């Protein structure tokens, strides 16, 4: 197995597993709590901003609570509900496409040896190394010529570039950790190939592939520059709308949009952490 196929994802996998495993002892638990505070604390003012008005310096706590930022964000004219829907549509589509190409690619990299494999490994990692904006500018020029610039399908296609490496990396590690002997075992116990797929292969690979999909979703969800450029500004997703209010210094509206922007990401993270923790619990004693 080459460094790419196993060592790198495995090392990453070990880190994730270690983090997800039940912390042992007080020290680990306090470290985890501290990490949580560090992650969550910067976000609290954003939530507070979204529900306050006229909160001026000497006052430690907001003087008035006000939901007008939320009313404005949810009004029909704000474009935010549509952007939320558009972001979901784009992230789901990009995730679907990235999985369609990335899972077989990850499987091939993990399980097969073929000529030019090294080159493929490097190419897979390239989008993580090359500045995304450089790629986006070239892509924009091409998409302008073929009429994909400024369209949702164009943005979806562009989002495959940053999402695909994550899908390939994660699924390569999922497949290299998968014991195909379990499939043989099931066949020999009397399961037909489709039963093996349904009762053994899919349930065993699903958690890992779900994590790959969640990664892809989050990466697509948080794209800014790529969406702005390839979308010709005309495909406003949540990060684009958020940026408009952040640069305008509108902390209230920006706070409300930020909460809406972060929520799916938090949901996805919690979900993937649970999947990983369950997988880790299963793996701990079998290894």
């Amino acid at each position: 197995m080459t460094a790419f196929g196993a060592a790198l994802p495995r090392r990453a996998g070990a880190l994730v597993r270690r983090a997800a495993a039940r912390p042992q002892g007080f020290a680990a638990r306090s470290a985890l709590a501290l990490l949580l505070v560090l992650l969550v604390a910067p976000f609290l003012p954003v939530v507070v901003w979204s529900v306050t008005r006229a909160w001026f310096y000497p006052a430690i706590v907001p003087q008035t609570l006000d939901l007008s930022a939320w009313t404005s964000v949810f009004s029909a004219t704000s474009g935010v509900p549509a952007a939320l829907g558009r972001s979901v549509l784009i992230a789901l589509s990009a995730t679907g496409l990235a999985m369609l190409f990335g899972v077989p690619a990850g499987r091939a990299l993990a399980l097969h040896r073929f000529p030019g494999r090294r080159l493929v490994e490097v190419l897979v990692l390239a989008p993580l190394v090359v500045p995304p904006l450089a790629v986006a500018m070239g892509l924009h020029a091409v998409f302008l010529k073929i009429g994909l610039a400024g369209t949702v399908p164009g943005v979806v296609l562009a989002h495959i570039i940053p999402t695909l490496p994550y899908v390939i990396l994660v699924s390569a590690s999922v497949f290299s950790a998968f014991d195909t002997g379990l499939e043989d075992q099931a066949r020999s116990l009397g399961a037909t190939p489709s039963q093996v797929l349904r009762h053994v292969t899919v349930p065993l690979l699903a958690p890992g592939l779900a994590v790959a999909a969640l990664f892809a979703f989050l990466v697509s969800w948080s794209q800014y520059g790529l969406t702005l450029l390839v979308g010709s500004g005309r495909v406003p997703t949540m990060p684009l709308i958020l940026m408009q209010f952040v640069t305008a210094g509108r902390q209230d509206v920006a706070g409300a949009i930020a909460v809406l922007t972060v929520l799916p990401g938090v949901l996805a993270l919690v979900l993937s952490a649970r999947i990983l923790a369950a997988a880790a619990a299963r793996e701990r004693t079998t290894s």
Partner: protein
Amino acid sequence: MPIPRRIVLGLLAGALALPVAARAAPLSEDALRTAPFETIVEAARGGTVNFFLWGGDDRINAYVSGPLAEALKAEYGITLNRVGVADTAEVVNQILSEQEAGVTDGGAVDLVWINGENFRTLKTGGLLLCGYAERLPNARFVDWSDPSIANDFGTPVDGCEVPWSKARFALAYDSARTAEPPKTMAAFLDWVRANPGRFTYAAPPDFNGSAFVRHVFMHAAGGAEALSGPFDQARFDAAAEKAYGLLDDLEPFLWREGRTYPTDIAQLNQLFANSEVDFTFNYEPTVFGAGVADGRFPETTRSFAFDDGTLANTSYVAVPFNAANKAAALVLANHLLSPAEQLRKADPAVWGMATALDLDRLTPAEAEAFRALPRHPAVIADEDLADRAMAELSADWLEAIEKGWIERVGR
């Protein structure tokens, strides 16, 4: 808790309502400049117009996507697609990259809210549709001979854009903190020296900070006239010596002794709101009213302009050379100039942006309606500003002043 189906459907509908450019029967560029306006309206009917504009104010967004879009739909059957941007320069880049890619038709931008440097870039690049502006039916309400309309930061408009709103520079203070603000530049500079740490300005090239520096420059040069007309190195050098010297001397009296400046107007607004400094300023005084309304500024915020002159500018809408829906863009540009739409936009309850129309060209009743508009107490009265308006400097002057500040004061 199950998510109500109505919301799910709404989200889906929003996502699927892709901003697709619906093509009406295309008119040639010549036809757009010569055909009767009814022909253009007919060509535009049932189409879409992609209106790109700064998206950082929910009130503006609500106005454009709300009453304005509804009016356009009702009167012309045109769908207005508001495209918010964080910075108008993004739109300029978009048009430039379309030109580079050879997109001469079917461009993303149909109409853009623009002025100053962005306009100059597009106009000098030949990237705008020109020659239609004064032919729009509602163009008759505009005084095209007014230098502040005919020149956009010193660049001749030449029918390449349509005025939308006027703006004049003003300063805001908190009447609860500052009873009587200094109302000339000289008095203001004295006040800053007498109240160390209570003032600062956003560092150029911030749009508003740059405008404040120009006021100082004009003051140092002995008046706006000294800097009018095309750029002149000798006149610049003479004024620069005094102006930058003045700003250098002022530094120790600024917030944090001038060691650092706010990098944008949002930061300065924040400092003002938190009582760290006593003034903020804006090229668009209605933002003070909006700021109080949305709780960013104290209720007791008031605004004023310098008695010895305050800069004025006009903002416009322009149609890129490769707009996919030029006819619809012209119909929208014309509609924006209608007295009724201008009145609605000038209403502080809607937006409060000053009209670009010449009230003398309206019917007395229409003009009266404009004069009778309520004014937010935080916003300086229009007539107070109009008396002291100074025309903006040309873009060359602007750039030289900004560059000089960054090199000599900002460092």
